[in-house]
Structures are given as C-alpha cells and as structure tokens.
C-alpha cells in the first residue's frame, strides 16, 4: 500500500467529513429557514466529497475496507482533519467566519489539485470546486452582512474572526508528507496558495469593515492526529451505532 497517499487522502477526507458534521448540527437550528437549508445543503456537499475520497482511500489501502468502515471505525488519533474544523459551532458568526476562511482556502486548494498527476484527485477536485464556489459566495455574503451590519453583528463577527484566526496557520503547513506528495506531482503547494488566499479574504474583511487580526501563535497537530477535546465528542455521536451494533446495515 502507498502509505503516504493513504494518509494524504484521509487528511482531505477527514476535513470534509468533520466540517460536514459540524455544519449538519445546524439542521433544525438555523437562524432562518433558508439558512437551515443552506447549511444542510453545504454539509451534504462535504459529506459527499468525504465519501468519494474515502472510497478511493479504501482502494489505495487494499485491505478490503469500505468508505463506511474507514469513517466509522477509526479513533481520534487516526483522524487527520484540521483542528479548526472540529471546534464547536458557537454562534452563527463563528460558524460563518470559519466557513468563509476555510472555504476560501479549500476552493483555492481544489483549483490547484485539478493539476494533480493522480487522475482520481484531479477529477475529484474539478467536481468539488464547483460546489465550493457556492459555499464561498454564501459565506462571503454573511461576512458583509454581519460585518457591515449592526453594532452587535459587527462585534460578534469580529470576535469570531479573531477566534478563528489562531487556527488558520495549520492550513498552510507543509510537513514532510505534503512535501513528498508535492514532489510526486500529486499534492498541492499550500504555501503558494497563502498569498492568494490572503488577498481574497483581506478584500472581503475590509469591505465588511472588519479589522484583520495580527498573526501569532497557532493551534496545530490535527494533520497528524493530535486533536482538541472536541473531536472525540463528534466521533462518539457519529460512530455510536456502528460501535454498538458492529456491521449494522441501513
């Protein structure tokens, strides 16, 4: 098995799954019906993307596991998503600030991934980028509405951006695995994306009359299985049925 590729795929798949699970938590709790529908639609895109990646990862692993076994039977330290994505939803401002800053980055990642030498990944990226475009537009609208809105909405979204900020450096980390994947023409140069991402989000934050936080210390570790306390709770809920009734079928 290509261990590098397997872990590389899981990083992207786990990002999608965990982010999708968090967004899906808004189901029935959205601030308006349209938003409830928007976030669940968005969650569905991410969960679908995760399924596609897990299927391919299972094929690369070649151990006869399927996408569901990979999702439902791994523990926290075998999950490689960004620490940002497992954080609780907070208020709508936090959810949207995270969604905007993450989706803008992921959209750029996918645009780069379309050039991957791995035929599956380039096809996956082409497909998913179309969906991300809608996520970015939706989140950007909310940044403008909240930032350039009332005193309360402004202060809440500013606080959310400040909080999310400390989780962002992990998005641009290039560890040895990322380097090897890049050298093989499979991976993505995350450093290259950083400048583009920065200019895109700065333009929106400025238009939304928001202050751009100072860069500093960042939370990290998720890409190598070191997580905050919150991931365990998500997995406990998500995996409950398969853990309690192993092999249960729908």
């Amino acid at each position, binding site marked *: 098995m290509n261990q590098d590729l397997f872990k590389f795929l899981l990083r992207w798949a786990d990002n999608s799954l965990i982010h999708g699970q968090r967004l899906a938590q808004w189901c029935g709790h959205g601030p308006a019906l*349209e938003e409830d529908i928007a976030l669940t*639609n968005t969650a569905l895109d991410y969960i679908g*993307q995760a399924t596609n990646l897990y299927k391919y990862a299972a094929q690369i692993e070649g151990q006869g596991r399927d996408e569901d076994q990979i999702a439902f039977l791994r523990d926290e330290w075998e999950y490689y998503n960004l620490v940002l994505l497992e954080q609780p939803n907070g208020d709508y401002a936090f959810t949207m600030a995270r969604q905007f800053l993450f989706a803008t980055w992921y959209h750029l990642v996918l645009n780069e991934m379309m050039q991957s030498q791995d035929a599956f990944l380039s096809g996956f990226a082409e*497909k998913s980028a179309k969906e991300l475009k809608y996520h970015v537009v939706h989140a950007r609208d909310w940044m403008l509405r909240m930032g350039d809105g009332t005193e309360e909405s402004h202060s809440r979204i500013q606080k959310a951006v400040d909080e999310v900020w400390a989780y962002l450096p992990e998005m641009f980390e290039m560890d040895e695995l990322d380097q090897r994947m890049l050298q093989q023409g499979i991976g993505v140069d995350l450093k290259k994306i950083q400048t583009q991402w920065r200019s895109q989000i700065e333009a929106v934050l400025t238009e939304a009359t928001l202050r751009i936080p100072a860069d500093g210390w960042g939370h990290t570790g998720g890409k190598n299985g070191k997580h905050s306390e919150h991931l365990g709770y998500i997995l406990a809920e998500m995996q409950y049925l398969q853990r309690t009734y192993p092999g249960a079928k729908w």
Partner: protein
Amino acid sequence: MVINEQPNTDRIWEWMKEVEDPEIPVLNVIDLGVVRKIGYEGETLVVTITPTYSGCPAMKTIEKDIAEVLEEYGVNNYRIETVLSPAWTTDWMSDEGKLKLHQVGIAPPVGHSADKSLLMGKIRTVRCPICGSEDTQMVSQFGSTACKALYKCENCLEPFDHFKCI
C-alpha cells in the same frame, strides 16, 4: 423476458429514459445528463453515471433504478460505474429536460456553466416559470435539493425553484 443476444446500445439509451430522477421525477436520467456512457466490456454491459452533486442522495436510488430497468429488459450481466470526471454540468441537460422543468414550475438553468460571474457576485436574470416576468429575486443560493436555488417573483409574488447552472 430473456434476450440472448446483446442488445444494441442505442436501445439501452432509449431504455434509460424510463429511469426517473427520484427528486425531480419529471426528468429522466438522460434529460439530466447523468448517464455518460453505455458500452460493452466483453459480455458485460457497463453503464457509466456521474453524480450531479458529490453528496446527491438520489444517486443510490438512480443506480438501483437503472439496475431494475436493465433486468426488466433481460440484461443480467451488467455493471454500473460512477465517475467524477468530467464533472457534471447543467450544459449536459437536454433541451427537452429544460422544457419539462419549466412546465412544472422550476426555472431551468440559464446560460453556460463556464460563466464565472457568480463568483464576482453577479446574479443572472432568471425568468419566473409561472408568469414569465424577469422581475425576480434570489432568496437563497440553496433550495429544496442540492441542485436548486430559491427565488421569488416580484410580479406574481410566487416563490419558485431555479435549477442552478453549474
């Protein structure tokens, strides 16, 4: 009914029109552009499909329905394959499909998917499928299914779905 010789793929394309989209049953999978390829690999018939959206919950049902139609026509040696690339686009929707959408009150996709204006914050004019007015407004980018956005008509005041152009 059992057919011993391999049915011609042109006939199978016709049969596929019997498979409805479970979420928008007025459309069949050919109207929708979800069936990409039909061909034989030796004795095995291979039907290649592609999802509209990555998380489209209708795909499993579509796969099952395709299998049912094939078996009804006596085809038992088949495989249904899902591919992601090239990514599905509303450009593949048949004109007949667009007309059918319009007739059931869903505004069909407008323009061409290569148009990048959405990212620039521009919204295309979508005609109200009920009164035909162009005085419409988008309520939400996301609607009752992954492929639709929610609109309202400022003229007849009816809300309606718009099949997004992607």
